[in-house]
């Protein structure tokens, strides 16, 4: 593994990330001094549990509003959970407020590649400035050593060195994506969260970036959490996948198994909606309508009830638990059979 600092004892176990019953609720509207009533709460992330092993790539999929963006912000410690735990190695990260995490030694070990590299790079920074910033801030590097590290990161990411002095608006989409990745891997993180990293790229550029991500995870030993709306891409890159709906986890399992043979009705509808080249289309699985509101949801009803093609009275009175099935699969549905 190139240039990694020795792994601290706290992170040497096989389980890199262990999230348990994580919830994030936002109050809706301003708390009035005189209102007296408890404010309505948006349940952005509700009772989410997942694990990530060392060296694994975990996919995270779901529609807009499913809570994956909030979950990403919780995992990268940009925001604090309402309840629940985030264990990184043996450390409990939720105990450290997000405000103070910037100065924590583990900050360098969890990094992010953002969706829109153009938006996530300061327009007044050159590519070199952007890549150097985390190294300067967290590793205290300066001068020649810093420059060398920046160039090394650029080389690892296939970014020609002469582009390092350019500003983001002077780079192509693919080049900007490489700058975003180089910035993220510079500090040699153990966990890299990728939030739709290829969504804004043309399909042929996407191929090269995906190939880069694969080669980096092998050479640098990084574990990935890969968020995407594109199920085909998730299938290519991820070992396991977590499917979210309205803040809750509805299905977990090996990526191919989940997409080839979904256990949860929502996953089935999601997979059926992806356009296919072979022209097969199952209109019976078409999910119409919109998700229910995430505000003050009924804690006793399945979130998918009402939109679900399967659905009986029990679904409205008993929240299905995430049950385990063979082959490392889980699904939160009364009718799932593994």
């Amino acid at each position, binding site marked *: 593994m190139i240039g990694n600092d020795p792994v601290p004892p706290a992170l040497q176990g096989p389980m890199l990330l262990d999230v348990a019953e994580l919830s994030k609720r936002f109050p809706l509207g301003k708390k009035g001094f005189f209102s007296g009533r408890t404010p309505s709460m948006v349940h952005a992330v509700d009772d989410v549990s997942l694990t990530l092993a060392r060296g694994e790539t975990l996919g995270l999929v779901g529609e807009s509003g499913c809570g994956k963006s909030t979950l990403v912000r919780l995992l990268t410690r940009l925001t604090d959970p309402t309840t629940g735990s985030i264990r990184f190695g043996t450390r409990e990260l939720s105990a450290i407020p997000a405000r103070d995490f910037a100065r924590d030694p583990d900050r360098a070990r969890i990094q992010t590649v953002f969706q829109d590299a153009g938006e996530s790079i300061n327009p007044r920074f050159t590519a070199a400035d952007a890549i150097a910033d*985390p190294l300067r801030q967290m590793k205290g590097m300066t001068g020649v050593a810093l420059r060398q590290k920046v160039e090394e990161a650029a080389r690892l990411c296939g970014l020609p060195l002469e582009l390092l002095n350019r500003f983001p608006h002077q780079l192509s989409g693919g080049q900007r994506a490489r700058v975003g990745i180089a910035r993220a891997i510079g500090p040699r993180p153990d966990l890299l969260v990728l939030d739709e990293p290829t969504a804004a790229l043309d399909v042929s550029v996407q191929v090269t970036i995906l190939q880069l991500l694969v080669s980096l995870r092998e050479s640098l030993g990084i574990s990935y959490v890969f968020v995407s709306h594109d199920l085909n891409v998730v299938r290519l890159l991820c070992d396991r996948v977590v499917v979210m709906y309205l803040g809750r986890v509805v299905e977990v399992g090996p990526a191919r198994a989940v997409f080839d043979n979904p256990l949860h009705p929502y996953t089935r509808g999601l997979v059926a909606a992806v356009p296919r080249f072979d022209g097969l289309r199952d209109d019976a699985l078409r999910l119409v309508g919109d998700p229910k509101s995430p505000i003050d949801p009924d804690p006793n009803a399945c979130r998918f009830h009402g939109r679900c093609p399967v659905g009986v009275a029990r679904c409205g009175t008993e929240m299905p638990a995430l049950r385990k099935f063979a082959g490392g699969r889980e699904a939160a549905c009364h009718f799932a059979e593994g």
Partner: protein
Amino acid sequence: MSDSTFAHARHVVSENPVTGFALGLFVFFVLAAIFGPSLAPYDPLASNTMRALQPPSAQHWFGTDQIGRDIFSRVLVATRLDLGIAAASVALVFAAGGFAGLVSGFFGGWVDLVIGRITDTIMAFPLFVLAMAIVAALGNTVPNIVLATAIINFPLYVRIARAETVQRREAGFVDAARIAGHRDMGVLLTQVAPNIMPIMVVQMSLTMGYAILNAAGLSFIGLGVRAPTPEWGIMVAEGASFIVSGEWWVALFPGATLMIAVFCFNLLGDGVRDIVDPRRRT
């Protein structure tokens, strides 16, 4: 400035000759401010009642005033004072207003509330009257004129800085900076501040003209710089009483110089905005 900024600046100046003209005038004024006192043909304070109220001639290009002082020398020397007061007050309000806008836009909460109320209080007054009141209360000194001008421009700078900050508060690169290990203040100063700088610089050049006018205006009504110090506003005030009796040059030359200086800075401000506004870039 990077190469592309220079190239763009050259292009703007070539496209718009008025900006080039304003730039030339600006250089002229700066040179006058720096070298004026050493280049003045006469001592600006030297009076010679025998040569009082002489019209413009070969020896006195702008004529002489009521106690025989050479008006050209006085106008030239006053450049340093007027420009200096304007520059100092713009620098002060840029620093104070810019910082206040940054923190109030970024952190919100009670900081935003307090700064908002301060700016509301300032804006409740007609601004020139407020400047008069501040100088009258604190005394007619140059630092107080600088302070008064800065205070009356404070709300404008806070408002601009705050609006620009709020726009960028949720930007991707702000999150990226947090993940790179910056804490709140660090994010604000290293990430957000450089991005609001261009608009602030434009505002500074636009305010310069107004600041000169403010200083001259205060001096005109006697609340600014005191005689016998040469200053454009005082000179216009002193010369005003002589217009009726036909000695037009005593007020005209300082007044015209004042007008040209303000005009120059306004044009320059427009030009700087064209250079700096990213929407104008290819």
